[in-house]
C-alpha cells in the first residue's frame, strides 16, 4: 500500500452560509479516496445566537442574509413559523406571491448551479451561457422587488409588494425564452459525450443510502426518493398549486443534473399557473409585536432541499431560540459517505453535485503527503480533475 496522502480541501463559501464554507479533508490511497471529513465554520457568524438579541422583525432581515442565493426561503420559513405561533395566516394573495418568488428563486438558483457545476467539470461554455440566461430571472426578480439578491419579500404577516399586470407580462415573456433555453440544456446534459464521461455512474448514491442519510432536495430525488416538502406537507399556496415531483432512479451525478433541469420546467409551469390564478385581496395582516410563547417547526423546500426551522418563543419581542438546519448540511453529511471509494479527480464534481453554492472556489487546499504537506488551491484540484479526464 502506498503512503497515505491527506488532502485538506477548504472549499469556498457554501450555501446557507450560516455555517457552510467547508474544509474538506480527504485521505487518499493512490487515486482513491478512503476517508472524507469536513470542517465548516469559515462563514459561521453566530446567527442563531444573534437572533436572541434581535426582535422578530429584525430577525427577518438577519435570516434572509443567512444565504444570498436562497434568501427568500429563509425569510419565508421564519415568517411562516412566527405567523403560526402568533395564530395568524398571511392573506391568500400574499401566500401566492411568496411561492411565486420562491419558484423564481429556484430558477435562478438552479441555473446558477448548472453553470458552476459545469465549470467544475471544465465546461466553461455552459457556465457562461447558463449565467447569461440567468440574468433574465434576475431582471424579473429585480423588477418585482427592487433588488437582485436578498429581495426582502416577506413581512411577518404578509408580503411587501404586489404583482401587477406589467410584471405579469414581463415574467411570461421571460419564461418563454428560458423554457426554450432549458430544453437546450437538458439536451446538453443528457447527450454531450464529454459531459457524460464526467457524470454518468459517478458519485452514485443508492436509494437506501439516500433514505438513511436523510438526504434532501434534488439530491434525494435523483436517487429516486420522493421527498419534497412542497408535496409532503404543502405550505402556503402550494395547497392551491400542487407540484409534480421530478425524480430519477439513476442516483448518479447525471441524474442530479437531469432532475434539476427538469425541475426548471416544473417551476415555469407553476409560475404560469400562479399568474393565471392569482388570488385577489390584501397583502398583509396585523401581527402583534410580542409573539405568544410556544414552539413550532417550520419546513419549506429550498432550491437545495428541505429547510428546517425550529422556533421557540417565550412570549416576548425576541425569540428564545431559533434553530436552522439548512439543506446543504444534510447533503454534506451524505456526500461525505458517498465520496469514499471514488477517484480524487471526481471530487470537485461530486461535491458540486449536491449544489453547495460555490461562489468562490479559489481557496487553498492543503495536501499532506506522508509527513510533508503541500498547498493546493481548489482551482488546482479542479484542474487536476479536468486534466485527469483529458488523459483518458
Amino acid at each position, binding site marked *: 500500500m502506498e503512503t497515505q496522502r491527506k488532502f485538506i480541501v477548504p472549499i*469556498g*463559501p*457554501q*450555501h446557507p*452560509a450560516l455555517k457552510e*464554507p467547508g474544509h474538506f479533508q480527504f485521505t487518499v490511497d493512490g487515486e482513491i479516496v478512503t476517508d472524507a471529513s469536513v470542517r465548516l*465554520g*469559515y*462563514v*459561521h*457568524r*453566530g*446567527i442563531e*445566537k*444573534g437572533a436572541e*438579541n434581535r426582535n422578530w422583525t429584525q430577525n427577518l*432581515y*438577519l435570516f434572509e*442574509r*443567512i*444565504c*444570498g*442565493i436562497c*434568501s427568500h426561503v429563509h425569510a419565508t420559513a421564519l415568517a411562516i413559523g412566527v405567523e403560526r405561533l402568533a395564530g395568524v395566516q398571511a392573506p391568500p394573495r400574499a401566500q401566492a406571491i411568496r411561492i411565486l418568488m420562491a419558484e423564481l428563486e429556484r430558477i435562478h438558483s438552479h441555473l*446558477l448551479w448548472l*453553470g458552476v457545476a459545469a465549470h467544475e467539470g471544465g465546461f466553461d461554455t455552459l*457556465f*457562461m451561457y447558463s*449565467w*447569461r440566461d*440567468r*440574468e433574465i430571472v*434576475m431582471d424579473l426578480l429585480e423588477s418585482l422587488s427592487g*433588488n*437582485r*439578491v*436578498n429581495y426582502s419579500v416577506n413581512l411577518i404577516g404578509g408580503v411587501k409588494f404586489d404583482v401587477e399586470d406589467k410584471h405579469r407580462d414581463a415574467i411570461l415573456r421571460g419564461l418563454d425564452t428560458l423554457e426554450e433555453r432549458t430544453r437546450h440544456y437538458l439536451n446538453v446534459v443528457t447527450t454531450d459525450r464529454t459531459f457524460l464521461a464526467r457524470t454518468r455512474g459517478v458519485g452514485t448514491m443508492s436509494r437506501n443510502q439516500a433514505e438513511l442519510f436523510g438526504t434532501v432536495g434534488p439530491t434525494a430525488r435523483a436517487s429516486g426518493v420522493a421527498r419534497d416538502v412542497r408535496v409532503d406537507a404543502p405550505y402556503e399556496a402550494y395547497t392551491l398549486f400542487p407540484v409534480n415531483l421530478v425524480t430519477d432512479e439513476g442516483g448518479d451525478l447525471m441524474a442530479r443534473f437531469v432532475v434539476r433541469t427538469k425541475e426548471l420546467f416544473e417551476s415555469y409551469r407553476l409560475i404560469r399557473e400562479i399568474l393565471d390564478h392569482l388570488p385577489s385581496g390584501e397583502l398583509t395582516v396585523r401581527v402583534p409585536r410580542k409573539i405568544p410563547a410556544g414552539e413550532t417547526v417550520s419546513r419549506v423546500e429550498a432550491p437545495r432541499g428541505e429547510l428546517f426551522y425550529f422556533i421557540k418563543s417565550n412570549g416576548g419581542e425576541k425569540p428564545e431560540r431559533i434553530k436552522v438546519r439548512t439543506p446543504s448540511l444534510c447533503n454534506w453529511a451524505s456526500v461525505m459517505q458517498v465520496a469514499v471509494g471514488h477517484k480524487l479527480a471526481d471530487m470537485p464534481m461530486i461535491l458540486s453535485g449536491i449544489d453547495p*453554492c460555490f*461562489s*468562490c*472556489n*479559489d*481557496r*487553498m487546499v492543503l495536501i499532506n503527503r506522508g509527513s510533508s504537506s503541500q498547498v493546493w*488551491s*481548489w*482551482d*488546482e484540484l479542479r484542474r487536476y480533475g479536468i486534466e485527469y479526464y483529458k488523459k483518458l
Partner: protein
Amino acid sequence: MEFSPDTPWQKVLDAVRRWARINSPWAIHYNSGSCNGCDIEILATLTPRYDLERFGVKLQGSPRHADILICTGPVTRQSRERLLRIYEQMPDPKFVVAVGSCGLSGGAFRGCYNIVGDISEVVPVDVFIPGCPPRPEAIIFGMVKLLESLKKGKAEVATVSEGAHA
C-alpha cells in the same frame, strides 16, 4: 547592469509595469464570512452580461499572481487568519476592494459573536462598494475607479457611492 530608481531605464520599466497593471489587473476573490449574495454578484459581473473582463480584470485562483483582492462579507473569527495570509502573499503593490455592506461595517451581522469586524479592521481597504449586495454595475464602477486612481499614481481611498460607510 545596475538599476537605480533614477536611471532612464528604470523609469521606462516602471511605466511599462504600470501600464500593464492598469490594463490587466488580476484579481482574487475571498469570502470572509459573507452570505454569498455579494459573491454571486461578483460572479455575475464576470459573466457575459456585465463582462468585467473587458477592462482586463481577470479572476484567478492564486494570491501570488493577484494585484487586487476582492473581499466580501464581515470577517469571521475563523477566516481572519486566512484573509491576512492571502493579503500577505500578494505581491506589492496590492489593492483591496471591499464589496457589500457587510464588508464595510459588518452589516446585518454586526454584534454576532463570531464576527471580528469589518474588512478594513483587518487589511487596509482601497475601495468600498456599498450595497446589500451591490449591483454588478456598482462593482464595475468601483473597479474602474480603482483603475483610474492607479493611473494617477497611488490610489486614494475611494467610496463608490453617496451615503456609504466612510
